[in-house]
């Protein structure tokens, strides 16, 4: 289905929100205001945005350690996300989870995850629940290239396939598992090739082209909702920053980074919108300004939120 102007601009706004959020997090992390680890999604915005634009309320997504983009694309409050990353009580998890555990089950967001590849069986189970309860829903699993080497990948794709579950496995191939390039960590170029081992379709998409991602996901989601079973979509993309903030990235060359930055999904989509006469340069700048304000407000919200009280230490371990 062709997207109208408003929907196209929403895609841009979503990607810009993720970019602005992540750059802001990078800034505060480098100032030492954010504890722990953060793994940023800068460069990969088109994947989460293009996929999640196809989702409905009853759907679920399972995310990764690099999960901020997925949460934003699913519609999570940036205020509560920022507060969580700052370790504050008004965060999604009352400051108990941090960047790697932002979650909102009500929103259909099964959580970022600190364990690489752990989201695969979770999404499979959510897909099972949707089918079991006849909710006409779909579960999306985002996972990286390196996660496709884990046993969870094999067991989950196999189980989803034999049970014909409405799960769309979205591989974000950013070319690296921490420091190890894809060429060193697996002896294939296209992770989508692995789909055939599970009797499901596998497609390769330019993960820096939000429209291409949107269209591939649209077809996959429709197919899954109609009872067609799972599918594997591989999105070729790149993270502009290191694996984590502070990663010196000695394992990759400037030439490689610059070549990918030339394919940055944001300016690329902005140009396309202008070529398609969907937006003027001024309209795009206006969105950028609005997003800047939203993220600045999120920072203010996070900074003003109190830290969790000591009483919080022992709550939420069990349901009463």
């Amino acid at each position, binding site marked *: 289905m062709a997207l109208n102007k408003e929907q196209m601009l929403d895609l841009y706004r979503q990607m810009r929100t993720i970019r602005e959020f992540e750059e802001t997090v990078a800034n505060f992390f480098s100032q030492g205001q954010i504890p722990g680890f953060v793994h940023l999604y800068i460069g990969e915005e088109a994947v989460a945005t293009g996929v999640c634009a196809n989702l409905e309320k009853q759907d679920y997504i399972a995310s990764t350690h690099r999960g901020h983009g997925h949460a934003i694309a699913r519609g999570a409050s940036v205020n509560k996300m920022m507060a969580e990353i700052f370790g504050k009580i008004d965060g999604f998890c009352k400051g*108990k989870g941090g960047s790697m555990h932002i979650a909102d089950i009500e929103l259909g967001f*099964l959580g970022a995850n600190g364990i690489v590849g752990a989201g695969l*069986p979770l999404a*499979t*189970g959510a897909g099972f629940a949707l089918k079991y309860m006849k909710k006409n829903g779909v579960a999306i699993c985002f996972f990286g290239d390196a996660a496709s080497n884990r046993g969870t990948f094999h067991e989950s794709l196999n*189980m989803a396939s034999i049970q014909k579950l409405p799960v769309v496995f979205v591989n974000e191939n950013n070319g690296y598992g921490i420091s190890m390039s894809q060429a060193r960590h697996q002896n294939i170029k296209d992770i989508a090739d692995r789909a055939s081992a599970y009797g499901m379709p596998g497609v390769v998409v330019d993960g820096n082209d939000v429209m291409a991602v949107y269209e591939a996901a649209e077809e996959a989601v429709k197919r899954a909702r109609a009872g067609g079973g799972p599918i594997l979509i591989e999105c070729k993309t790149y993270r502009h920053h290191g694996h984590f903030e502070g990663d010196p990235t000695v394992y990759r060359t400037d030439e490689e980074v610059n070549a990918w930055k030339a394919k940055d999904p944001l300016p690329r989509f902005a140009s396309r919108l202008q070529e398609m006469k969907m937006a003027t340069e001024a309209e795009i700048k206006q969105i950028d300004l609005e997003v800047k304000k939203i993220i600045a407000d999120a920072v203010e919200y996070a900074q003003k939120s109190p830290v969790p009280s000591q009483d919080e230490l022992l709550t939420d371990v069990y349901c009463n």
Partner: protein
Amino acid sequence: MAEMTYSQAINEALREEMRRDKNVYILGEDVGAFGGCFGVTTGLIDEFGPERVLDSPISETAIMGSAVGAAVAGLRPVPEIMFDDFLGVCMDEVVNQTAKMRYMFGGKAKVPLTLRMACGAGVGAAAQHSQCLEAWLCHTPGLVVIMPSTAADAKGLLKTAIRDDNPVMFLEHKLLYGAGGEVPEGEYTIPIGKADIKREGKDVTILAYSMMLHKALAAAETLALDGIDAEVIDPRTLIPFDKETLYKSIEKTGRLVIVHEAVKQGGFGGEIAAMVAEECFDSLDAPIKRVAAPFTPIPFASGLESAYIPDEAKIIDAVKSVLG
């Protein structure tokens, strides 16, 4: 009261809970028409169909991981891992996903699943099919750990576990599956975290669970012939642990012997002993004794295996030693 085996009691609990709540489903290896490796799920597929009694490929990680995903999405999965020895295959799903999800998400998730698994030695199944691994689970905040010793407890506790909103690890001893017992007629449940005094006595407290409960009861009868009146407590639930019942008993007897089948080193008995030493020391008239397996993998040869498993004689020796 009805007479039935531990296995039949578990089957009845599953059947009753599946009738009661359509969101309860079973997933595991060979649990369908085959009826489970130990026959526990026999006949359930006939009543509930393959949509609710799902045969899984040999994929413990996906069994457990998908159960977590389904549980947070609103179902009440009852996955089965054939042997608790296979927990290692899905330990990330148990420890890092199931157990922590509620806390990590600030209390906004619940994971109402019950993982059933068979534990225990005594059938010549050797090192990878015979362990009691409850200590691994008891070390992980967020899990409920239950080890029933009788058919009645197994049924009542499993029904409660399935209805509970916390993730429950339910360890069934494979030697008990065929053991008969009296089970109340009709609907009943047993609360989680409540110990049961299986034999009242005044001279010494023996705390034992799962298969060892039966050896402790047998030992108590033998000790009675020598005029020693042992109280035998079955905690039934290890996490949460019913300290009150145990401490009250120790206040009466002044002596404690802890019996479990798992290896003594790092075993849950050490935790109970430490708890009593910290919180109930004044009631003790003698040092605490533990009867448990030696620090070795479980051997195959029957003579070696029986030397490994704690027995009545060892329990009697321990009781006599604390009675000085």
